[in-house]
């Protein structure tokens, strides 16, 4: 019956309308997707444009995340601030939410029921709702973080010594994200077909440099069924073959970076692997920017589009040289269910408007602060020309900062929301072999 219902909804979606459920109220939609339409977050003593540094950080402690507060206090970084602006998601995603979210619920196992497309739970989180944290993480997982289809090229991961600023190694990637299901913008909608494995999303990464890792490829297939483990494959150029990944181990440092596979995009695991708790909503400074108005690096040189990365600076060149803005965020605390998991918890600050993660805190097994992940997002109209109108908070830069090891991996993106570069036939094992050299 459920399958029939979904098929019916899917057909309706393909026909161009999301009218299968009772519509979500306009108030909920406005609150969820357009919080800054008639409201601007404020904080006592805070004015956009102020530069926050070690001298005045105490004054702004309430709007700076706890990790960044300590870093600024130690003089590692100065926070430039700017005005808050809306980063509205694509109207199709909003419309899909309006039309279908009313029928979405959670199963006893914590998986989604009757989710077709859009934000599953657009309602404001309720502290009295024990499932509020779970709903927020689902909002992220079925969110519009990379649109229906995103390509990142070039994508530089730079390993840096946070004490000395020395660049130790740099990996240059080509990444692709493709949603197979719940698509709202790119045809076909809502699902790509055929999809016999019921893949929800594919991530496909290729290392371009350095030579010893060149042409290493990673393919991860995430399934619609959250209880099913991902499948993953790694093409190793020195073996010229695809190696099946033991995907249960996603807490391993990825290619030597300061990130685990689980850390990608803020959280890249099964929802069911953690217990999620909503711990509150606040106004907080976030690295959400207009990319073209930021301090840009000289690289990548000779980019055909004239694109330049966000510059890195501060202690060890581990901090993004961007203008931060005050935004409404929901905090979620995730506790791993696996007692052998290397983390005690991760705290995800979720941007209320986009349901993306501007800041992630990671605590080690003992509960001590371990890693800080700021993820810069850009308004798509102020980024690559090809992203104009994409309605996606576009990945612009990120940092995986390991404060215990005093080491960081900085990520610099040239993200492009498009479908042309992500033909579904690229997202399979055979393509890894085909392109492997």
């Amino acid at each position, binding site marked *: 019956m459920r399958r029939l219902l979904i098929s019916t909804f899917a057909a309706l979606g393909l026909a161009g309308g999301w009218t299968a459920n009772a519509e979500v109220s306009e108030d909920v939609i406005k609150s969820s997707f357009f919080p800054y339409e008639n409201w601007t977050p404020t904080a006592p003593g805070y004015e956009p444009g102020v530069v926050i540094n070690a001298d005045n950080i105490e004054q702004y402690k309430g709007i700076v995340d706890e990790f960044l507060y300590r870093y600024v206090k130690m003089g590692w970084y100065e926070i430039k601030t700017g005005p808050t602006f809306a980063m509205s998601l694509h109207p199709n995603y909003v419309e899909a939410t309006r039309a279908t979210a009313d029928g979405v619920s959670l199963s006893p196992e914590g998986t989604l029921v009757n989710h077709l497309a859009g934000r599953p739970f657009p309602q404001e989180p309720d502290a009295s709702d024990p499932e509020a944290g779970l709903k927020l993480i689902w909002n992220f997982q079925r969110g519009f973080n990379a649109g229906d289809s995103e390509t990142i090229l070039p994508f530089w991961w730079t390993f840096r010594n946070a004490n000395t600023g020395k660049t130790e190694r740099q990996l240059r990637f080509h990444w692709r994200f493709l949603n197979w299901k719940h698509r709202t913008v790119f045809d076909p909608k809502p699902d790509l077909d055929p*999809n016999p*494995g019921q893949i929800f999303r594919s991530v496909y990464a290729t290392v371009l440099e350095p030579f010893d890792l060149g042409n290493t490829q990673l393919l991860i297939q995430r399934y619609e069924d959250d209880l099913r483990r991902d499948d993953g494959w790694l093409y190793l150029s020195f073996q010229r073959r695809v190696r099946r990944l033991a995907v249960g181990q996603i807490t391993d440092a990825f290619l030597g970076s300061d990130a685990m596979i689980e850390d990608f995009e803020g959280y890249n695991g099964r929802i069911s692997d953690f217990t999620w708790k909503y711990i509150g909503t606040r106004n907080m400074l976030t690295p959400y920017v207009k990319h073209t108005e930021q301090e840009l690096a000289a690289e990548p040189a000779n980019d055909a589009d004239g694109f330049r990365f966000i510059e890195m600076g501060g202690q060890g060149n581990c901090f993004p040289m961007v203008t931060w803005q005050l935004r409404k965020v929901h905090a979620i605390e995730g506790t791993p269910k696996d007692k052998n998991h290397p983390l005690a918890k991760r705290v995800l600050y979720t941007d209320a408007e986009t349901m993306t993660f501007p800041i992630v805190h990671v605590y080690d097994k003992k509960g001590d602060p371990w890693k800080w992940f700021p993820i810069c997002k850009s308004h798509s109209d102020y980024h690559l020309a090809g992203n104009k109108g994409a309605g996606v908070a576009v990945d612009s830069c990120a940092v995986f900062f390991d404060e215990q090891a005093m080491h960081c991996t900085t990520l610099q993106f040239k993200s492009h929301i498009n479908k042309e570069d992500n033909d579904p036939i690229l997202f399979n094992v055979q393509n890894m072999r085909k392109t492997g050299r």
Partner: protein
Amino acid sequence: MRQRKLIPIGLFPCALTAVLVMLTGAQTAVAGYRSADGTLSATGFVDSATFVRKDEDLTKQRLQAQLEFGKLFRPRGIFSELSMHGTFRASYDAVYDINDDTYGSEAGGPVSYSAPGNPAFFAFINGGATPPPFTLADVPTSLGYAGTFGPLFANPAFDGAIPLPATGGTINSASNPNEGLRLAASDVYGYQDGGVILATPVRPCDVDSRGCRADYFDKTKSDLEYREFNDDWDFIRELYIDAAIPLFRGRNELALRVGRQQVVWGRTDLFRVLDVVNPMDFSRQNLYAEFEDSRIPMGMVNAEYRFGATNWFEDLNVQFLWKFEQFRPHDLGQGGEPYAILGAGNFFRAFANCWDNGCTVGNFPVADVAVEFPAQAIGIRNVNRPDHTEVGGRIEGVFKGVGFSLNALYFYSQFPSLRGGIESINPFLDPMTPNAPTVHPYSLAFDIEFPRLFMVGGSVDWYWEFAKSSFRVETSYTTDEEFADTSKASLYSDSDVFRWVIGFDRPTFIPFLNRTRAFLISGQIFGQHLLDHESYSVNSAGIPTMSQIGFQDWEDNYIVTLLIQGNYFNDRVTPQIITAYDTEAEAGVISPSVEWKPSNNWVVKFALNLKWADDTGAIAADDNRAANPYPPFTCAPPLLPPATVPPSAACFSPYSSLGAAGFEPLGRFRSGPIGAAHNEDEVQLTVRYQF
């Protein structure tokens, strides 16, 4: 004394580059070239590899450069993708100059065999009945016949090996001098089992052409030093065109790759089951080079019809292969090379020289006796390389999360087969007797052939959550592989062979060693079963044998491997231990290594390669010396009657081996690639600059 100087000389380039690493490691990365429009890219490396072996000092001092390029063309016509890719490699291995008295122009020397049994053997022959037409008067015991590769015995009457009559004089001639030789199995053991002793020429084939065969083991010094610059143009490792034709509105795709390339089947490490499309260059570093570097790329048409996701499969692909480049076998390394898997090259070259020039064979026909064979009696006559088409196909895909493949290949064996049953002379006939070549059953006269094979197989891989491991299984069934079989008159048989491997990969955190980075633990067990294996304890004449005759390869064998790899300092320091154990040979290898990447441009790797083997590592196998290919002359002593009694009737017909056994030659296959190299412990240092 000279060799003692070699180690520091050989290590000097590495030491120099190591200093450069430290001086430049922190500098800005030098990336490969990429054009502004992204359509042309080039990357590569230069490196220095210095390998030192325990008893032979330097075994590799290779300077190597590799350039890889890719050029994307604007798609035209029906094509959605057009590109060209190439890999060029050039190297110079200075070991043949620096360590020239071990591997180069001055390698080897005169050899001599201990043959204390010669007097007794002469006495036995003189005292026994003389089988017709061989008379005592014909027994050539004079010094005129006593040419040999070396003085064997102090008594001048028995100075030298026992020359068989057809030797017709000394084999230590101007064309076959006792120099530039090495005992063919001396790198493995000391012949303490009384096994057959052969001498192999070891100098490059332009310096000493003895035992060389065109297009198989004929490397000149230049070929050895500059390995890629040969008649096969191996400096072009890969050069191919990629093209893609979208079909059914882009839902399917026909992908073509045409040119010299590597095609990788299979999912295994270190040993191969399905991955048999390209032959291997084992002379590069025995088993231990990365497959990418040791595969021999071949000219092929590689057509893949890619269905992508279908209604049933998450991914489905059908591949067709046509190997159009002339057949190439594995490069096993020729006699005298530092890396010659199984030592087969030594045996082949020694035996080829036997055919061309005659040879002295020690511990023949029994221990402590040495015999001279004339030319064209025993040995390897020809190497016959096939020149017909090889084709294959594969269906591969993913079904319910399980990766699978079905493979088939119609190809030629990349390992050589020694086929007996060729015409040769009878070494026991007097030089004055007509001695037209004819087929002597059970005689040690061979041609090398590469038989036609048909392989079918398949593989699967999957992830098992309970074990937090990924698993892989691979099987192949090959028809008509050829093996040495001392029970057969032609000394070979064919057998179908079933091979399989089960492997797992498990990333595992070992917190007290590294709390942020998992160790990769990867294990495999390989099995091989010869379905038509035959083994006997009586020979063709019904005589009980001293050891099992018939197939000398194992009927069943298993090899286990284990890899443990860790990473530190953001994967810039990678310690690793890889080990393998051959259960039948009872031989193993362990190779601990540390790789250091101080920057994007530099990679330094230090490794040990240590082997061990049960006892000597040289496993005995029936060597056929106790067969009777030239009746009645080779009738074994137990069959010879006292002088007063007529000879046994069995002496007058050929019969198969009585099972006298030793390491040479077939014990090599029992010892396997690990056991046969058990003396080749090495220290290895590689410094690479990549861009």
